[in-house]
């Protein structure tokens, strides 16, 4: 439709079949592709050969080709796997456990929230939201400062809140909608985590959960939730309402619709979002630095630790980076099968 309007632009942007190109065009195309492939792959190659270099090879300046420029050695691999041994394995397992569970929880909870934001209209009064937050603060203050038992202060808080809802609350007309809620959720991510890292640290310290898996799983899940809600909302919105209505009339319950219709159709979105969140958790450094010391230490910390007292140990870092990449590649391979397009073809229209 707009093809006619920007005909020339479209001709430029529309990919031509590479087989129908002139030889010169082919050469340029493949040349550009090869160049970009080199840009992308060279760092990986560099990490790989650095892991096989002796310290002397690194310090002598750039050496590019193994067996010709230098003799590869497995000394760094031996150090990481045998001398460090458990000190490598533990962070590795920690990273896997923490990234896996935080991703599953974030995607699980976040996609439910996203679905609700797409399919239900929420119209809470603005004043009620503010009142809830104020009363929550009072409850916390009563529990900590006044030393009231927590169940008592929660009961008082709930009573206050419902009293407000049924009396004063009705006077306020301004309401917030789904878009406001979504913006509020996303705004949690606008704040850089570093701002909240100290309170988070103190919180887990008080709960005596520092340096545990739980602390990191809960924190990563919370940090990633806004991203999941934001991404999944678009995926759910693309599923036609007709399908759900049709299933309702066919006699399915809400839960049957969610599991039998919505989830299978949202699979590509779930897979893409999971992969994205998994990589974020896998690479996270700052929060891990604060919340873990030894037992729950993750791989990024171990990599950073190679740049300690003796200066950067590039060869050890390279080994760690290589083994860190492997699980992500495996997960990408597994999840990629689900990231198929056109799953909705045939649902509506002829």
């Amino acid at each position, binding site marked *: 439709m707009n093809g006619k309007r920007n005909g020339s632009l479209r001709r430029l942007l529309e990919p031509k079949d590479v087989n129908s190109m002139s030889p010169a065009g082919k050469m340029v195309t493949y040349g550009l592709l090869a160049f970009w492939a080199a840009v992308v792959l060279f760092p990986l190659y560099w990490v790989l050969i650095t892991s096989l270099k002796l310290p002397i090879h690194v310090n002598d300046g750039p050496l590019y080709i193994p067996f010709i420029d230098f003799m590869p050695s497995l000394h760094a691999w031996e150090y990481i796997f045998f001398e460090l041994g458990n000190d490598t394995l533990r962070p590795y397992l920690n990273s896997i456990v923490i990234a896996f569970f935080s991703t599953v929880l974030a995607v699980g909870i976040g996609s439910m929230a996203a679905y609700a934001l797409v399919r239900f209209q929420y119209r809470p009064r603005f004043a009620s939201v503010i009142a809830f937050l104020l009363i929550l603060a009072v409850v916390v203050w009563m529990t900590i400062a006044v030393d009231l038992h927590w169940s008592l202060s929660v009961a008082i808080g709930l009573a206050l809140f419902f009293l407000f809802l049924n009396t004063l609350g009705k006077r306020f007309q301004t309401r917030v909608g789904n878009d406001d809620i979504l913006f509020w959720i996303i705004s949690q991510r606008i704040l850089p985590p570093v701002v909240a890292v100290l309170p988070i640290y103190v919180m887990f310290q008080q709960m005596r959960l520092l340096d545990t898996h739980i602390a990191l799983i809960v924190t990563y899940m919370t940090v990633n939730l806004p991203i999941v809600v934001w991404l999944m909302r678009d995926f759910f919105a693309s599923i036609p309402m007709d399908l759900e209505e049709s299933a309702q009339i066919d006699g399915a319950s809400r839960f049957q619709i969610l599991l039998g219709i919505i989830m299978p159709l949202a699979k590509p979105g779930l897979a893409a979002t999971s992969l994205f969140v998994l990589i974020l958790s896998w690479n996270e450094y700052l929060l891990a630095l604060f919340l873990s010391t030894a037992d729950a230490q993750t791989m990024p910390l171990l990599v950073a630790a190679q740049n300690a007292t003796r200066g950067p140990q590039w060869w050890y870092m390279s080994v760690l980076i290589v083994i860190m990449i492997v699980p992500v590649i495996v997960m990408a391979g597994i999840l990629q099968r689900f990231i198929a397009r056109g799953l909705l073809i045939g649902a*509506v229209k002829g």
Partner: protein
Amino acid sequence: MTLAMRNIYKSFGSNEVVKGLNLEVAEGEFLVLLGPSGCGKTTALRMIAGLEAVTSGDILIGGEDVTGVLPKYRNVAMVFQSYALYPHMTVAENIGYPLKVSKVPRDEMSEAVRETARKVHLEDLLDRFPRQLSGGQRQRVALARAMVRRPRLFLMDEPLSNLDAKLRGYMRSELKHLQAELGVTTVYVTHDQIEAMTLADRVAVMEAGIVQQLDTPRRIYDDPANLFVAGFVGSPPMNFITGAITGGAFECGGAGLPCPGLADNPRAVVGVRPEDIRVTGAGEGWLQGAIYSLELTGDETIVNVAAAGTHLISRMDKDFDMPMGAEVGVEILGERSYFFDAESGERLRTASHSGQPIAFSDGSR
């Protein structure tokens, strides 16, 4: 099952889309809700299905009040305009879905699926996915999914509008045959008056949230209740000429058309169907004009005559042969003309003319 809608109102915010809908649909009847887009017919259907809550009024299915009942407990089946097939399920799984969610045993289910598929000629496509089907095949899957569990009502929301003309004609007769065979009460929404005329036992013509006339297709066509119904039903549409009624004759541009017994009315409209207008030689007939265009459709010629400041469409024999621009006369078969009040659009009747009372007659077919 019978269906009754009593005094149904529906508003979206301040926008009232259904205003006092009353319908009684008899057991096994095929009722068509006909109207232009935005007339409230789809909203009415969605309220029967339970997808939309009523603002006020009652809905009864088989005598049981279902006004506040969730769609899944109403045991009605619906065919959507978009078909709404589940894209990740095969044809067999799509058809069997209503049985699967109601926990029908597996063999019983596959037997029912096979039998229903046979009825709509899908038995060879059971393992395909919707994306591998043509539009007509998808439509039949949607139909089979509605039929598989013997619902109390069939609800159809423009099910044929996404098909090409030829297929639409075929599916129309298929649909009529299946409905008669199954004997399930059906409410069918369409804006296509041909579909309404051909399928319906009774048609409810809707406009602006109000039923304008509820009657058999024949009486909708032969005895329209008002200007809207007269103009909406029929293809090519009815011809309208504005004029005045004085002393038992309809006057426009000097010519008079007798309408004995009608009260004087300074602004009246006469409506004549294209088949009731004859093009005659110049100087004859009621009005004089010139041929504006000719369309030979094969079995007849549609003649457009510019006369009385408007265009009159006449359905003439296929052998009709006059050049465009020729001076002609227009003759009206006076028995078959309808008079309306130009302001209200209401039909103007005489005691002798009105015959039987029209419109809003319920129940009895």
